[in-house]
């Protein structure tokens, strides 16, 4: 693929990144950090390609190490982000809910 096309794509991706991320509410900055962290685990694709082309056992070993590391990054990142975001669903339905919604009560009181 030509260098200029890649450069163009990079420049546009920079704009997309800045525009999209600057809209993230500060409430979600921790999930943003771990979510972005998960995304760069996609280096896994590169690691797989390298490992799939490896002929030499040492090269293969190094490449497989890269695969393990990248997978840990990718899978762990998405799982941990999901766990965090699960907490943002707001009120959980069920018996525990009533005891832990000070916000709503606050509104009733103040209005």
């Amino acid at each position, binding site marked *: 693929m030509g260098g200029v096309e890649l450069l163009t794509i990079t420049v546009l*991706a920079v704009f997309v990144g800045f525009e999209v991320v600057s809209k993230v509410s500060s409430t979600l900055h921790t999930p943003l*950090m771990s979510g972005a962290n998960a995304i760069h685990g996609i280096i896994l694709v590169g690691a797989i390609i390298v490992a799939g082309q490896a002929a030499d056992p040492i090269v293969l070993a190094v490449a497989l190490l890269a695969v393990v590391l990248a997978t840990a990054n990718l899978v762990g990142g998405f799982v941990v982000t999901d766990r965090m975001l699960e907490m943002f669903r707001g009120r959980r339905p069920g018996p525990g809910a009533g005891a832990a919604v000070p916000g709503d009560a606050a509104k009733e009181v103040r209005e």
Partner: protein
Amino acid sequence: MILLDPLWTALLYLLAAVCFILALKGLSSPRHARRGNLVGAAGAVVAVVAVFLSARLDNIPWILGSIALGTAVAAPVARRVRMTQMPQLVALFNGVGGGAAALVALLELPHAAGQDDAWMRLAIVFTLLVGAVSFAGSGVTFAKLQELMTTRPVVFPGLAAVMGAVLLAALGCAAAVVLLGSYPLALALLGLGLVAGVLLVLPVGGADVPIVISLLNAFTGLAVAASGLVLGNVLLVVAGTLVGASGTILTRAMAAAMGRSVGGIMFGAFRGGSTAGSTAMSERPVRSGSPEDVAVLLGYAQRVIIVPGYGLAVAQGQHTAAELAQALEERGIAVDFAIHPVAGRMPGHMNVLLAEADVPYEALKEMSEINGDFRHADVALVVGANDVVNPAAKTTPGSPIYGMPILEVSDARQVVFLKRSMRPGFAGIENELLYEPQTTLLFGDAKESLTKVLAAVKGL
């Protein structure tokens, strides 16, 4: 096995890239955030499937085994980690990602040995160096946060000189690799990158570690983008660039919330400054109260603002705090949570923490939103926070937190601190507010104190 022609592969990669963009877009509102993250994960799956179907790969069993291994290690850790340890975990994942990028670049070097491949080798040395810095630096931040080593800045005489020498050597190696494609020098560069990563993070004080994590996150993103250039893979380019942009924005936002500059944080130690202040504790008297005293203050107030901080996370007292707020609401008292952007150890840490306790995010007030309200509040209840309410940020020009915007709790009629001791917060400086006449201290673990106060409020 090649089932997909290059066109379809490219389209699937593009689809995955779009999924990643949507994942970040989802974070613009808490409602769609989780779905967005799942879309991102789906994009990753699409990309991995595409690479298996499209390239002639050897060693497939080995690769699948490695993926299984990585998953088996990471998923349970990610699922079980305590929320207070989140920063460490992110640092760890970030580091391994950077390491993977560096290794990929290293292995690609032989494929970029041609005369015309100098640009490619440039991308390779960039990935190598930045990936290695990110790997080693993240490792050190992990060790600091996990308290495997001191959280204080580690500085030694000649640090700046050593760092300079390492960087010069790295530059030399990099140039040689670009020009000659030498493999041993590439290995040397990898080593130098690791050393540089360690040296870069050692002198950073504990309170600044999250900023460094975010910065290294951006670094890893850039390394991945550069490796995408090496492999001619649009997906890696886009994904890496997105992460680079998000890391940059987050780093700047955090630094701004602390009233600091990124350069000052990273290189302050080299210039002789240090992020830690004095820890000498004064012997002046403070007013400490019992849980019942605090319950009376709270129970007969009209407006209470709760200021959570890192200590609340450590004590895992978020559920008790939510219950206390609920109990006060039932008495007709207006209760808000005031969220400082750098309270805790990660940006937005308190939001995650209180969301875990099912406090609806509408009830969490941002600093700018609530700062004017403290003067109408009867009680500001500071639970395990310290630096983010420390007036030294406004009054003491030499202080490491000078210039950081703080929550104006001193405007409230009464201030109650729940903490275990007179020890300072992460920035390591004393808090004058503890000695003010309107301040009451309730010593003890935040969760235990909150439980006692809650019981006392219910008994009023």
